[in-house]
Structure formats: C-alpha cells, structure tokens
C-alpha cells in the first residue's frame, strides 16, 4: 500500500483522448480545470468558517460577501473562548480518548490474535458472529446498556471515573468488531512460519503475540489508534446519553451546547467550530500517511 503515496496512478485518459483526435493538452486542461474547480468547492466551506470567525459582526451579513475580514477580529476567538470552555472540553475528551485508544489497541489485537494466529475448531464460525455484530444498530443495545451503567452507579460526574466509565470501559472488551476485523486481516498476512519457529523454540502464545506479532502490526495499530481517537472526538450520541453535567462535556457535545446558547452569534460559532476542527486538521497533516493507508485498509474487498 506504500506505493499508493509514492507514485502517481496509471491511467489511459490522455492516450485515449489522443486516439480520438482531441489534442492531448486540451484534455489535460479540462481535467485540471475540473479538479481545481471541485477543490475550490470542497475548500470554500472551511475557508468560510475561518473567515467568518474573524469578521466584525456587520460584515457577516453584507452583500457582496466579504472574503477577507477587514480588520480581522482576532478577539472574536478570545471572546468565544470565554463563553466556550474549550480547555475543559479538550481535557474531558482526552480523559476519555486516551484510555479508549489504549483499551482498543490492546484488546482488539489480543482478540484478533485468537481469530487469526491460532487454528482452533469453530474459530471461523465464531468470527462470523463478530462480523455480524457490525450490522446491529447501537439503538438495540443503547437502552439496556444505559440502565446497566446507571444501576451500577457509573453515570454522573461524582461517580468513579468521573462518569466517563460507560464511554471508556467497553473499549477494553474487544475494542469493537471493526477493529478486530482490521487487526485480523493484518495478522493473516504475517507468515505462519514465524509463529511455528517461535513455538519450536518453546515460545508461549502470549510471548509470540507480544514480542513477534504486535511489533510487526504497528501500521494497523497506528490506524486503529488514530480512528479510535477521532471516534471519541466525534462521538455525539454516546456523550449525549451518558454525560449529565457540563463539566463532563467533550468538544463535540460542548460545541452543541454552545450552539444551543449562542447559535445566533455566527462569528463566535465559527470561532468555536474552528478551534474544534483545527486539532483534527493538524493531526491530518502530521499523520497523513496513516490516515490514507488506514482508510484504504478499511475499504479492502469484503
């Protein structure tokens, strides 16, 4: 999959255009023109988000639209952040996402080892059960789960784990069917001879998992970490159900709360959206390879 990033893909567009007498450069110009136009369409909303955040109020509503705010109101961010306790929201999100990433990486890889590196009777039938749970809507288990967490006293900021238990603990129990699936697919590509040789040398399964398979699986574990982190940053329904106090809110729920209270101040709303989005975009620039390879991995032929 590395070559995905290294080289441009092969296509026949220019060649076939030549065949039909369209000059090569005209076809290319059309292609690039289309791509640039579509890129602008995809980027304009983000540009509008940032530029709106920096506008003095009247410039938000004028015709023709103001593209570059004059002068940029940097203080909008400061004012928005006094109303929008982003620091607290980030702290809460990290409080949830870091244990979630750890739990998911550990238990999904552990489980996937059992579904790929050991050949036990009935294994593939049980794995079919794992995959079938992907189809189960969250709504089916949502209500009883809520009642369970409530009854064992893990909902509310004064409970253990500051009420984040219902969002964190499930990730230590397998880390989700999709992540198990991803890990398993990766583990299957590691030659079995490697395990056989280690077993000959008297290596236990636990050691093979920890010292041989896990280090080889770094790319897929990076993917899973990244997507789990994004998942907690993004999650809306879970926190909406389980978090009862504004002091527990994550960035996503916090932004919704902010919209609820100050929805008509578009300058503040866009400033808050920008600070919520910025860390994710920064992450993309640092981990572009992991993103693209990870997405590609999730799309492997079913």
């Amino acid at each position, binding site marked *: 999959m590395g070559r*995905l990033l290294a080289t441009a*893909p092969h296509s*026949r*567009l220019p*060649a*076939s255009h030549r065949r*039909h007498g369209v000059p090569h450069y005209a076809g290319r110009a059309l*292609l690039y023109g289309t*791509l640039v136009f579509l890129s602008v369409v*995809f980027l304009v*909303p*983000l540009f*509008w*988000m940032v530029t709106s955040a920096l506008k003095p109020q009247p410039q938000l509503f004028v*015709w*023709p639209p103001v593209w570059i705010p004059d002068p940029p109101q940097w203080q909008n961010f400061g004012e928005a952040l006094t109303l929008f306790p982003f620091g607290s929201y980030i702290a809460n999100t990290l409080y949830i996402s870091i244990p979630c990433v750890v739990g998911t990486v550990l*238990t999904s890889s*552990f*489980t996937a080892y*059992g*579904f790929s590196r*050991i050949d*036990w*009777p009935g*294994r593939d039938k049980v794995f079919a059960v*794992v995959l079938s*749970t992907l*189809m189960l*809507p*969250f*709504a*089916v*288990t949502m*209500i*009883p789960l*809520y*009642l*369970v967490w409530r009854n064992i006293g893990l909902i509310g900021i004064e409970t253990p784990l500051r009420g984040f238990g219902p969002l964190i603990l499930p990730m230590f129990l397998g*880390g989700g069917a999709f992540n198990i699936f991803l890990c398993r697919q990766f583990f299957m590509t590691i030659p079995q001879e490697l395990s056989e040789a280690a077993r000959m040398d008297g290596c236990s*399964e636990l050691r093979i*998992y920890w010292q041989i398979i896990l280090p080889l699986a770094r790319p897929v574990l990076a993917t899973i970490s990244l997507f789990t982190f994004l998942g907690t*940053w993004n999650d809306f*329904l879970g926190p909406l*159900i389980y978090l009862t106090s504004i002091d527990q809110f994550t960035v*996503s729920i916090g*932004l919704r709360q902010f*919209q*609820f209270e100050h*929805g008509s101040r*578009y300058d503040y*709303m866009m400033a808050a959206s920008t600070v*919520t*989005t910025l860390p*994710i*975009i920064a992450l*993309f620039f640092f981990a*572009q390879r992991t993103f693209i390879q990870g*997405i590609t991995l*999730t*799309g492997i032929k079913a």
Partner: protein
Amino acid sequence: MSRAQRQKLKWGLIFISPWLAGFIILTLYPMGASLYYSFTDYDVLRPPVWVGAQNYTVFLTQDNLAFTAIYNTLFYAAFSVPLGILVSVTLALLLNARVKGLAVFRGIFFVPSIVPVVASAVLWVWLFSSRSGLINLGLQAIGLPKVAWLSDPAWTKPALIIMSLWSVGGSVVIYLAGLQDIPQSLYEAAMIDGANTWQQVSRITLPLLTPQIFFQLVLGLIGAFQVFAQAFILGSIGGGALGMGSEAGPANSLLFYSLYLYLNAFRFFRMGYASAMAWLLFLITFVSTLIVLRSSRQWVHYGGV
C-alpha cells in the same frame, strides 16, 4: 479431540476472551433485555409492565410521527447513499487520471470528511442561513431565488443530503486505491481492440470497482438509517413541531428514525416503545443488507483478473 487440538482451543478461547466477555455483557444481554422491554410499558421509574405486541402495533399503525420518521429516513438514504457513491467514484476517476499533485487534491477532498460532525453541522447551518448564508449568496449571484434551506420543510432534507456529499472523502480514497489495483494490461488490450475512454470506463473500470462500491453501499445504508448528530444540529434551527426543545426541524421534516427513537427513550421515557423501534430498525437494516447482498451476485465482479 486430540491433545494438540484441545491446547489450541484453550489458547484460542483465552485470546478471544476480552471480546467474548464484551459480547455477552455489551451485546447479548442488552439484546435480550431490549427485546423484553419492547413488549412492555416501561418508564424507568416503575418496573416494566407486559403489554404484548402493543408497542409494535401502535408504532406501525397508529403513530403518525412513526410514518414521518420512516419516510424521512428512507428519503435521506435513497438520495444520500447513491449520490455519495456517484460523487466519490467520479472524484476517484478524475484523480486516477495520472494527475500531478495527486496527494494535494486527494487531501483536499479528504479533509472535509474528518471535520468533526458537530463542527461540520454547525458550519453548514451558517452556510445554509437563508439571509446571508454563503449558499444563498451564491444563488443570488447567479440570479436564482434564495432558498429557506432550514426553515422550509421541503428543503431541509436536501440541505442535509448536500452536506453529506461534502464528507465523501473517505470513500474517494477507498475507490482510488481500488482503481490503482486494476492491471494496466487490461486497458492496453482494450485500446488495441479500439475501445474509447467511455467504453474502457464502463466495461473495465466500473465492473472491477464493484466490490468496493458494494462494500460502501452496505456501510452507507447502515449509516444512513442511523443518521443522528447532523440532523440533531440542523433540526434545532427551524423550530421543531414536537415541542420540548425539539430537534426535529420545521414540520418534523428532520425527524429521522434514530432521533425519534432517542426522543422516545431519553426525553419521553418511553423505554418499551423505543426498544420496539430499535428492533424494527434492526429488522429494516438486516433486510436491506440481505437484499443488497442477494443482488450483489448480479452486479459485483470478484477477482476476475
């Protein structure tokens, strides 16, 4: 069973034990409980009271909002999923044409898909604003009338569908990877036979991309049936008809299945009713997946190369 096999079974079970525990606690038990609740009247404060199939019959025959919620959800799925596939396959085809700066273009199309869904919904509320939203300003600039995107019930769902097309970047990356796996030799052979670009795309590229399209179709449908956060944010703008700070949009035009289920469970505390809804959603999801799976034999090409 031999000793070696027993040993393998033992280790297999040890390794899958985290998932197995999770499956029992987080899936099996809740499934059983919600199936039971679905046949009861349950408001959390008092113990559940058995009412037989009443929740199901009321939902399917007497609840007008149920019809609205199902209609809205099917409408959204019927447009956002196929349009999403169309847009992302088109973008992937363009990117696959030996483009210089591929990584840059791919990054541009991909980034909107990782914008947190709440931030993206809040942004689109502003873009769709009827007075000074960028989209209406654009319509005005080319001489078209403004649209009351979020307050006219006829336009709220199209608005949500347009918004969903902005975040197809993940699929673009998947299709692009699929396109790059198609062997160059097939195209060379086709060109020797005199096939033009369109013939190559329709006879080689698209058929060989069907496994990816199929996978995205299944995931897209499952996702569309559960659309929630975006609708929740967009719907709280136009003033919902359900009352109690509703998020259902003008004239309940954004009352999606998951939202109605959530409101029943956590705002009206009709846990039994919501559980019955959840099982019907499961049934709908299951049947649609099955239909797509069955139909795939006719149109999905596997490993023909």
